[in-house]
């Protein structure tokens, strides 16, 4: 497909000194001071997702231009492009050892990529509609995917076979994720449900329902797997204690009524909740106090994805087609 790739000649907008080795001060800071460090230009259509690799070296971005681009996480340097999907890519995820990527595409397939060689290893076929979200389990022998066909599938990485199909949602699946030890799966759907599954058996263990049942646009386990962060299309993020089915915290102030926007836990410095927003900003809340502690301004379209670096105070954000860029924000807290 004829697409001019700007990737290689990425314009690095900001002069970046070395990646900040943030000083982790003992007392949690009141506010972070994230500032724009880099703008990564390369995608030719809306960016759909950005993810840092678990080893912290790279940033992967997927886009409606059917490409996945790997960037240096600290310097924003373009590394490589992975191509092979026939249609837009909605999500991309890293394996725990940062060697594999899985991507979910509107062409109803998922693809497993070898990052080092830029090679496509497997194509996972089985979904009957757009594949919208995907993730590896912690031991990275399983992949989970959610699709517009309202099913969640579990795949074996090695063989590319679908081992289990979970069909318990009645609307497109917006997000799926394993918990930190791989024993549980969480799935969120436009039907307003958020379900917890036993990964080994595929049994549904728990269902979280919000009072007014807004579509769930994103779900994510907390880093320790004790809580679940859910985003709903009524401008709300909630933190749940899923074992008791209780909502503990509610984060509001941003705008989210239309898109499935990624949000994230930031735990490298202060404890924050980070999310994109439809008012082109990145919002940062204090996890405990639920206050908005910072808004990052710079994007020119809906910030669809915000990701936090595993070890450094770096936030990556990506925006839709009026913007097409990825921005890296850094803080010394």
């Amino acid at each position, binding site marked *: 497909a004829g697409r001019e790739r700007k990737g290689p000649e990425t314009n690095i907008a900001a002069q970046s000194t070395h990646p900040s080795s943030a000083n982790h001060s003992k007392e949690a800071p009141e506010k972070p001071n994230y500032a724009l460090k880099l703008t990564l230009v390369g995608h030719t259509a809306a960016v759909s997702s950005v993810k840092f690799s678990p080893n912290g070296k790279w940033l992967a971005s997927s886009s409606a231009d059917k490409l996945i681009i790997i960037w240096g996480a600290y310097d924003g340097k373009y590394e490589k492009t992975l191509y092979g999907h026939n249609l837009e890519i909605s999500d991309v995820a890293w394996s725990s050892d940062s060697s594999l990527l899985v991507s979910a595409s509107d062409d109803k397939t998922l693809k497993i990529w070898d990052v080092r060689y830029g090679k496509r290893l497997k194509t996972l076929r089985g979904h009957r509609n757009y594949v919208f979200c995907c993730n590896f*389990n*912690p*031991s990275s*022998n*399983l992949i989970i995917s959610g699709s517009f066909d309202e099913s969640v599938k*579990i795949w*074996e990485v*090695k*063989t*590319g*076979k679908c*081992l*289990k199909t979970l069909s318990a949602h009645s609307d497109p699946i917006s997000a799926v994720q394993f918990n*930190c*030890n*791989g*024993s549980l799966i969480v799935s969120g759907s436009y039907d307003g449900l958020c379900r917890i599954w036993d*990964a*080994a*058996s*595929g049994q549904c263990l728990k269902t979280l329902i919000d009072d007014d049942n807004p579509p769930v646009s994103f779900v994510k386990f*907390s*880093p*320790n*797997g*004790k*809580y679940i962060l859910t985003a709903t299309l009524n401008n709300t993020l909630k*933190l749940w*204690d899923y074992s008791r089915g*209780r909502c*503990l*915290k509610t984060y509001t102030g941003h705008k989210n009524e239309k898109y499935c926007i990624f949000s994230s*836990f930031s*735990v490298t410095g202060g*404890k924050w909740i980070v999310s994109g927003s439809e008012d082109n900003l990145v919002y940062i809340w204090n*996890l*405990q*106090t639920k206050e908005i502690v910072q808004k990052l301004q710079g994007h020119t379209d809906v910030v669809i994805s915000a990701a936090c670096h595993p070890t450094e105070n770096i936030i990556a954000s990506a925006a839709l087609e009026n913007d097409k860029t990825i921005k890296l924000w850094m803080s010394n807290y």
Partner: protein
Amino acid sequence: MAHRGGERDFQTSARRMGTSLLFQLSVHERELDLVFLDHSYAKPWSAHPDASSARPTRMLFVTPRRQHENTIESDVPIDVETVTSTPVPLYDNQKARSVMNECERHVIFARTDADAPPPPEDWEEHVNRTGWTMAQNKLFNKILKALQSDRLARLANEGACNEPVLRRVAVDKCARRVRQALASVSWDTKLIQWLHTTLVETLSLPMLAAYLDALQTLKGKIPTLIDRMLVSSNTKTGAAGAEALSLLLKRPWDPAVGVLSHNKPSKLPGSPLILIASSGPSSSAFPTSRRHRFWQSQLSCLGKVIPVATHLLNNGSGVGLLQCLEHMIGAVRSKVLEIHSHFPHKPIILIGWNTGALVACQVSVMEYVTAVVCLGFPLLTVDGPRGDVDDPLLDMKTPVLFVIGQNSLQCHPEAMEDFREKIRAENSLVVVGGADDNLRISKAKKKSEGLTQSMVDRCIQDEIVDFLTGVLTRSEGHVGSEPRDQDAEKKKKPRDVARRDLAFEVPERGSRPASPAAKLPASPSGSEDFSSVSSSPTSSPKTKVTTVTSAQKSSQIGSSQLLKRHVQRAEAMLTHKQAQVPISSEPAEEAEKEELRVQLKRHHPSSPLPGSKTSKRPKIKVSLISQGDTAGGPCVASQGGAPDAAGGKAIAVTLGQASAGGLLPTARSSASEGVAASPAPSVVSGSTTPSTLHTLQSRLVATSPGGSLPGATSASSLLQGLSFSLQDISSKSSGSSGNPGLPGPGPAPQAASVKLPTPMQSLGAITTGTSTIVRTIPVATTLSSLGATPGGKPTAIHQLLTNGGLAKLASSLPGLAQISNQASGLKVPTTITLTLRGQPSRITTLSPMGSGAAPSEEATSQVLPSSSQFSEEEPTDLGVSTHGTVGAL
């Protein structure tokens, strides 16, 4: 003063800490013990205020109830990062992982052509299915599905801290599904051999390893079937491969293997003889369950084990329930006496499971034994918990240990505490967390706590050892001239040095001089005025039985009392929990299954029973409802649907077929009327299941009112009717049955059921001064199996019987017996509604009931091609609920 003793205790304790599995497994309790080590004068916090003889309850694997934190304010800091550290597995993780991967390592042995390249990862697409029959395709797909789920579980559990246990649970599940699939084709030899060969040839190595794991598991349960399946491949691979494979499949791996073998329990002091009271009449056709056999071998580590089996004459035909109980108690008793005479110095320990536990207690009241261990004590009866003033067990003087499951249906820890308060004998209670009546822990418990049944069993054993050591050393101390411990002597409390929980010492009751076994071998342990033999029945105030001096007689009555409560309680329980027996397989495959529900309801727990007919009489209503043809028409229902319904399903079919309450009369039995309702031997033609059914129907009809008995058919005859057909199945004589025009559709080709006569209990023959009532309720079971294997498989009914269900079934009889015995004033169950409901569309499945509920898992070599017994060993919810069902029966 207490210094020495304390020190020694500490050493003992420390030694135990190093070696005892129990210590490793349950740290909580040890903390408790440490407190007592420092403050041995302290009372344990859980010491019972009222019951000086009841030691504090010990909890095994009982998860402490999570304290509900007061409603969390939303401002409480939330920690999203810290991962709660996972508990270290209690077993040797490295070793467990190694055995866990055994099959994976040796998978190559299974391959017929070891030189050929293993099938590729996408082997599934390469499987050439041309020429496969539908049955083959179906079977293959089922197996594949099972293996695929297993694969998912393996991958998902990979790296988990308790991966071996999780894997074990997953493999068990997979094995169950494989077995289910194979049972769905009735273990058709050709088909399963084809399947095995095909799987071995086509499966990728990881899948093959999973398959082998499943085979390994099944081999332990049903060796003959698996062997039959492997025959063909063995000829292909050659001797070496076959041998390697058989070695691999020899026994299922256990995550706890290392720990258990390193912590062998030691022999009990005083080389006691351990008598195991059976919980039902034994029969050659129904060997004891694997679990009981396993325990027997476990206990043999502690001392010489002597199982006491009760053999019924004539294979049990014509033996009443009471007689049977009498036999059981008598057998144990005579064994005790025999041992006393042969080895007057040896301590005797009675151990029993469930009903056997009651038998053991009962015997301990009559004869002197050193200690009693009750495993899975059935405390609850319809009257409520045992322990009424007239309960003979309250007269026990023998130290007794109760081990119960936390989730037991026949017992409840709190009720148990109440009971223990009333027992005068020194007693201890161990509650096994998440365990059922047979002390089997649930799958969820295994998963969440990283336990295996073998570990739990070992811990239970440790507790038994602990208890017995205490009792034995103490009694030794009494016998021996030299007290072991000066301090203990000073306190007039025999202090057991081996016990680590010294503070738990129960002060001896002054009234109870320990009677050393050596001196008074045959005397009851207590110092009651009269011998316990006659005391037990007569001492109960309610019973106005003219004292029967013969031991024989009294034991009979005692036994009836013994069982009465038990049964009644079981009934009551059912009214709360409608016992259901869900079928575990998918509906699609259910053609060959049948669901059986048993509901037992009871109204009017008691009513005085005057002798005259006109007044209230016990009413027993038995209704068999077939869901399929509720109308109750005598049409032949489900049979056609299941061509390969094996004979083993006969019973369930019988129940299912007999339809609608309309058929079933409410039978009234009159107390004073002698009812000798022995059914005319009716004959079921050949082996056809349906006809059996119909026979039952007809029989039921026959016994309905309007029969020969004026106005009332005896309840027993009704039960008789129910059971007769089962019995008849056993009697193989062919001929026309009494079923009017209900010829059974031909049995399926493989449905040649082998029927073995089974013990049949006829209840009754109770004689009183004034009236004579002879009631016979034969309950017979059929034993059927596939045509090829005469080995046979105990049906659920039998399991019921062996499980003490027998006793429960007969519970009504004690009632009846007493009715006749005492003119009035005894509690009698007046109404018993027994509803057996079956779905004709599904065939068989008494067995899940049997398996889930009956303590006897099927014997390993037995064959029953029904998918129903898969729940064995897994006390799932299914199992639990079925248990209730059994209790009802």
